[in-house]
Structure formats: C-alpha cells, structure tokens
C-alpha cells in the first residue's frame, strides 16, 4: 500500500511541470520568437536609419544614429501628392472598416442558424461554403471583374467591400465556434421571452467574442493589404497602400521614405492585433454556465 502511494507521488512529481521543463519551454519560445521578430526588427531599424546607413554594405541590423528624417521626408512627399493625403486615409478607413465590419456581422448572422437551427438545405449550404474556400480565387480574376462590371459597382468602394462581406472563411470559423455553445443557454433565453434576434445579439455574440475578434483581426489583415488596383480607377478612391507604394517606388532617392512606408504598413495591423487580443482575454473569464 505504502509502495503504491510512494509510486503515485513520484509519478505526479514527474508529470507536473518542473523548473527545468519550464526553462526548456521558455528557451524554445524565445528561439521561435526571435526567428519571427527579426524581419520586424529590421523594418523598425531601417525606418530610423539615415540614408548613408541604409546604403551601407554589408548592412547592419541595428541603427547607429537614429533619426526621424525618413518620416519628415515621407510627410513632405505626401503634401506634394495630387489628391490631398487625408483622402487616401479616409478611403482606407472606409474600405478596411467596411469590409471588416460587414464580414464579421454578415458571416456571424449566417453562421448562427447553420450552427444552431435545423432546416432543409443546411448541409448542402455548408458543403458549398467549404467548397468555396478550397477554390483558388486568385485565378478567378476575370469572372470577378465581369461580375463587378455587371453589378455596375466598378470603380466604387463597394467593389472591394461587398465580395469581402460574403466570403466563406468567416462563416466557417463562426459556425465552428457557435456549435460549441450549449443549447441550454439559448433555450433559457427563449423561455424568458427573447426572440431570435435578441438571442443572437445578447446571448450568442457575447459568448463567442473570442471568435469574432479573431475573425476581425484576420479580416482587417486581409483588407489592409488590399491596394484595390484592379477595381478602383479614380485617384480619389484609392487606398493609402496605393499612395504609399507610389511614393516609395520613386527610386533610390526615396529609400528613406520607403523604409518609413514599410514601417507604417506593418505597424497598423500589429497595433490592431494587440488591442483585439487584449479584449479576447478580458471577456472570457466570465463565460460558462452552471448546469
């Protein structure tokens, strides 16, 4: 009896994480993390380098004499642009924000019945969603263009926002998370007299907040990288990305401005990610039901 007890204690000690195990995991994470952060370190340092350091050979990772010259260069170039620069920023906010909000809301709305209701045609619809995700949409630029012209939304924001709203990925992600919610949660809300609309907004959505915040991060990233050059022809409609590329593509003399541009393009989605991640953590501590 005693031997068995001793054995158990020993086994537990081995299986619970030890100090050495923690250190090992920590080292592993540092190694992986370093590999990932290196390009960003380069981007940050490059945007602070004066021109002579940018062209130094062999290049150094870290900046010697940090300067904000690159940014002032960039702002000066911005002022020279044909369309006021604030217009580009507004365009980007509208396109990225519209595409992200539209996608999250519409996909969540559609995911709720797919996850929690029973109706004919449900499985077929879901299979179609998976099929649509597998298809390589880069190849379908011609049909996309024909459809956009057919709808007469060519050369408007809608040409970028509407297709983003109804992509299958968000629906799939939201459905997988909503399926995990216990039915009793919704049932109790219905017994208290909530209609489906209220159940959706007040019960389902708050409980899958990590899921839709994840989706928002994901979609923001997708929309942010969009230069919109296929569908937008007017200069007044083009997003920030496009303008920044125009500036940085001006040859070696603009290398500094280009480095600053790279920094801005990287910094915004990272900031957005940090904000969203923080909210994911704050909400989930309170969820869960008592049976």
């Amino acid at each position: 009896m005693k031997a068995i007890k001793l054995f158990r204690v020993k086994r537990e000690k081995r299986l619970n994480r030890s100090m050495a195990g923690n250190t090992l995991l920590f080292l592993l994470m540092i190694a992986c993390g370093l590999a990932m952060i290196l390009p960003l370190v380069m981007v940050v340092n490059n945007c602070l380098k004066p021109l002579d350091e940018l062209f130094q050979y062999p290049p150094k990772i870290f900046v010697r004499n940090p300067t904000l010259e690159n940014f002032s260069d960039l702002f000066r170039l911005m002022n020279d642009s044909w369309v006021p620069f604030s217009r580009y920023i507004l365009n980007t906010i509208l396109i990225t924000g519209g595409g992200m909000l539209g996608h999250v809301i519409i996909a969540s709305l559609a995911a709720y019945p797919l996850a929690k209701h029973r109706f004919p045609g449900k499985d077929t619809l879901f299979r179609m969603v998976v099929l649509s995700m597998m298809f390589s949409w880069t190849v379908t630029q011609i049909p996309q263009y024909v459809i956009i012209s057919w709808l007469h939304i060519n050369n408007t924001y809608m040409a970028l926002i509407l297709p983003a709203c109804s992509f299958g990925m968000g629906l799939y992600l939201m459905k997988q998370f909503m399926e995990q919610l216990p039915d009793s949660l919704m049932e109790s809300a219905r017994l208290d007299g909530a209609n489906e609309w209220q159940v959706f907004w007040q019960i389902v959505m708050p409980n899958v907040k990590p899921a839709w915040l994840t989706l928002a991060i994901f979609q923001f990233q997708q929309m942010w990288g969009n230069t919109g050059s296929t569908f937008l022809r007017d200069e007044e409609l083009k997003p920030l990305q496009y303008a920044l590329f125009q500036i940085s593509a001006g040859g070696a003399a603009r290398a500094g401005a280009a480095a600053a541009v790279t920094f801005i393009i990287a910094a915004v989605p990272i900031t957005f990610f940090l904000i969203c991640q923080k909210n994911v953590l704050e909400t989930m501590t309170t969820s869960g039901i008592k049976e």
Partner: protein
Amino acid sequence: MKEKRKLTLTQKRGLKGYLFILPWFIGFAIFYVRSLIMTVEFSFAKLTVSPGAGGYSLEGKGLENYLYAFRAHGSFKQTLTSSVGNMLIDVPLILFFSLFMALLLNQKFRGRGIVRAIFFLPVILNSDALKAAISLSEAMMNGGIATQAAEVSGAASSVLAFDLDYLINMFVNFGLPVKVLSYVTAAVGRINDIISASGVQIIIFIAALQSIPSSMYEVARIEGATAYETFWKVTLPLVMPHVITNMVYTIVDHFSRSDVVELAYSTAFTEFNYGLSAVFSIISTVVTLLILALLVRAIQKNTFYYN
C-alpha cells in the same frame, strides 16, 4: 376557417434562420457561386479577351483542355502531386506546432500580449503589401542583404549537409525506416515555413482554449487530476472540434500558396490560356477537397461535441 398550415416551433425557427442567412447568401451567390460557374464554363472553352467594355468571347472546345492538361502538358501532373505531397507533410506539423504554441501562450505570464503578437507577426509580414514593400527596400539597398543571406545560407548548408548525412546514416544503421527518416528530415528543412504558416492557427487555438469553461478545470483539479491528465481528458477533447477548423484553414491556406495555384495563375496571366488555367484550378480543387473530406471524416469519428 383557418386554412393556413400550422408550423411547428422548430420549423418557424428554421424560417427565421433563412432570414439570418439571406444577406450572406445573396453576396455569396453573386460573387462566388457565379464566378465558380464561369470558371467551369471557361474550362470547356477557349477564351479570347476582346477589347472593349470588359468583353470576352468563348469558343466551345469540349474536353480538349482537360485532355491536354493530363496528356500533353509538361509539368501539371508533377506539380499537382508534389503540391499534394507537401501539403500532407506540412498540415499535421502545422497543427501540432500551433496547438503546442497556443497551449504555451494561453498560460499566464508577464508580457503575454507582446509574445502573442510576435507569433502573429508572420501572418502580418506575409501579406502582399508588406512583402512588396520589404522587397522594394531590399532592392534599393543594392541587394546587399540578399547576397549576404545567400553567402550565409551557403556556408551553413555545407556545414549542415555533412552533419545531416552523418546523422541520417547513423539512424539508418539503427534500423529506422527510411520513410520515417525522410519525413523527419523534410520536416526539419521546413521549420521556418511551418512556423510562419501557423500564425492564424495559433490564434484560433487560443480562442478555442479561452472558450473552455473554467469550471471544467476546477472540477478536474478538485478530482485531483494532474496537469498531464487534465490536458488529455479536458483540454484536448474540448479543443478537438477546432482541430478540424484549423485543419480546414491550414489546407486552404497551404493550397492557396501551392505551386499548382501558381502554375494556374501564370498560365492565365502570362500565357493567357484561361481555359487551361481553369482546368488546373478545378482539378486541384477537386483533389484537395477529396483529401479534406477523408481527413475530416477520420477526425470527426474521434471528436466529442459538447451538446
């Protein structure tokens, strides 16, 4: 009096469900179903873009494109098999790695937000916009970074190659099956790809871990479960449905970056052979779908659903 057929409660709810789906479905039908149908049409025809208001004309060719793709095209079959093979190697590795990382990043430690952001970086850095910007600034620095990187990797590979050969021989002598060994070496060679392809998966797994009710862990602790037991009996079963989610995402993501898609893209936009390119994308989509269906079925059997 009342001729109207009474609907049951669940049927009524189902009807409301259609209303919820409608906005999404309209967009889906217009943008995606329609362009899918058009792509299928293209695959049976020869497409010529005619100048003017976005016009094109189709000339029916039957199965000719399909036959050409399989019988005459130089690289399609090899590209397809190698892409599928790579996918089969990468997908399990990405899934294990991202689950492992999510478990680590889900723990409480200082600076967790920053560390998570670091692991999400590859996704951000992989975007087209940023890649273009970075390569632009690299090109402007007279390719200094590129040449140096090539020198370093050249030197490293000559050192590594010696060690690898030695190690592989040693393991073969120990009697390890060559197939296992080649899988491991292929995996090691791709560590960077795997790490940088698992950003979104880590996030999905973290969200999945966050949505496990804390009462589950409390019960496990009260019952005296060790951390090891808690993982296998509580965490893994509850995360299992999201393993499928992540697998689907990984396959989609991997596929969209694979050589087959690149081949289809270049066929369409540098050789302007839209019909053939449509055939490539349809065939590769069907193949990946089949693989996906098999894998999902295999995992779903062992999955526990909360309700």
